[in-house]
């Protein structure tokens, strides 16, 4: 593994070439579209930082109704009980289902919050000229990209419960507005991660080396 302090390798950008985001073919960066696949060509994803920040803020806002509003409602013999994400986790703990409570806690609380912080920090950290820990930040980005969809677990749980528990007047489960807000939040954070260009982290190193 080469050290982080070794001289910066020659990049395609420094030779006036751009790598296509879709098919990974190198073309002169003066071209407007890729000669192979026809995708529009950019040295870096356009407005990467602004888009990531905007989508991260949107996701953070969606996370509020996702936690405050009920994710599902149980109607048992005419009595409706609403439950939120946190309420559902507490109920599982109360029943002693610790592993399942842990799965939901990680998927619905830890992962979304960690993703929001990671994206905020990554977007903030690429602003200055003196970046640190390029390799670690790149790894953090890859992790953010990888874990994103696992947050969807709770939405799928609600869908299965709603589909299955339809016992006439005896017991019915209906989805709550938080399911929608939470699902939307997961999709928006995935879009935010997709619009972030990790090469911006390494551009700082080049600026440092002059």
């Amino acid at each position, binding site marked *: *593994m*080469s050290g982080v302090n070794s001289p910066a*390798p*020659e*990049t*395609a950008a*420094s*030779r006036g*070439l751009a790598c296509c985001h*879709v*098919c*990974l*073919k*190198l073309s002169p960066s003066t071209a407007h579209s890729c000669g*192979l*696949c*026809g*995708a529009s060509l950019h040295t870096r994803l356009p407005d990467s930082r602004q888009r990531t920040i905007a989508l991260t803020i949107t996701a953070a806002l969606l996370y509020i109704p996702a936690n405050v509003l009920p994710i599902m409602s149980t109607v048992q013999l005419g009595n409706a009980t609403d439950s939120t994400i946190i309420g559902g986790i507490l109920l*599982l703990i109360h*029943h002693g*289902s610790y592993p*399942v409570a842990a*799965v*939901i806690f990680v*998927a619905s609380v830890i992962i979304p919050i960690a993703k929001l912080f990671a994206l905020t920090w990554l977007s903030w950290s690429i602003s200055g000229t003196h970046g640190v820990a*390029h*390799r670690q930040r*790149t*790894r953090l980005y*890859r992790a953010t990209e990888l874990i994103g*969809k*696992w947050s*969807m*677990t*709770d*939405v*799928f*749980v609600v*869908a*299965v*419960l*709603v*589909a*299955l*528990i*339809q*016992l*006439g007047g*005896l*017991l019915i489960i*209906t*989805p709550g507005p938080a*399911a*929608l807000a939470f*699902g939307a939040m997961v*999709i928006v954070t*995935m879009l935010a991660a*997709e619009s972030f260009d*990790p090469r911006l982290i*390494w551009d700082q190193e080049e600026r440092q080396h002059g």
Partner: protein
Amino acid sequence: MIEIGELKSGQRARCPRCNRLLTSHNDEATSRALAFAFAAALLLVMANSFPFLELQASGLEKTMTIPRAGAELYRDGHAVLAGMVLVPIAVLPAVILATMITLLVPLRRRARSSWLVPTGRLLFALNPWCMVEVFIIGVLVSLVKIGAMATIVIGISFWAYIGFVLCFIAAVGSLDRFQIWREIEACQA
């Protein structure tokens, strides 16, 4: 910028900067992806045709199939939620499998065809939005949640879906974006 050049089967190329795997060349990759894609397609059809789970409580019964679960959500006015669930677990995987087969069959024969580029673009754009393995975890959590209050009978579709997820992951995992595009490039030339 690095020169990857011609890789032999089994060779890998990593980024000298961040150490990310750039490509892992395998001569058999296309055939393997195609084989798993056909198996996954068959299992996905099975998973959508038979009961997924069945609930029995107080003499009442309720059977769930994947398409019916979506249809009921839609009927009860939860159209967006129905889409949010059905699209990443069934619709997108079906589109991806169809795309994969349309792309890989001519690519394997090195045949020049006008749809290689559009199918290639579609395939890699849709890939990140599939959540089939996440759905399995969701189902397992649901089973634990319901298990306390009712009897659950696991249907054929449940096992078919698990088989589908394994084949689907194997098919998608055999695809190397760099290698596929270089093969498309060779066919277009």
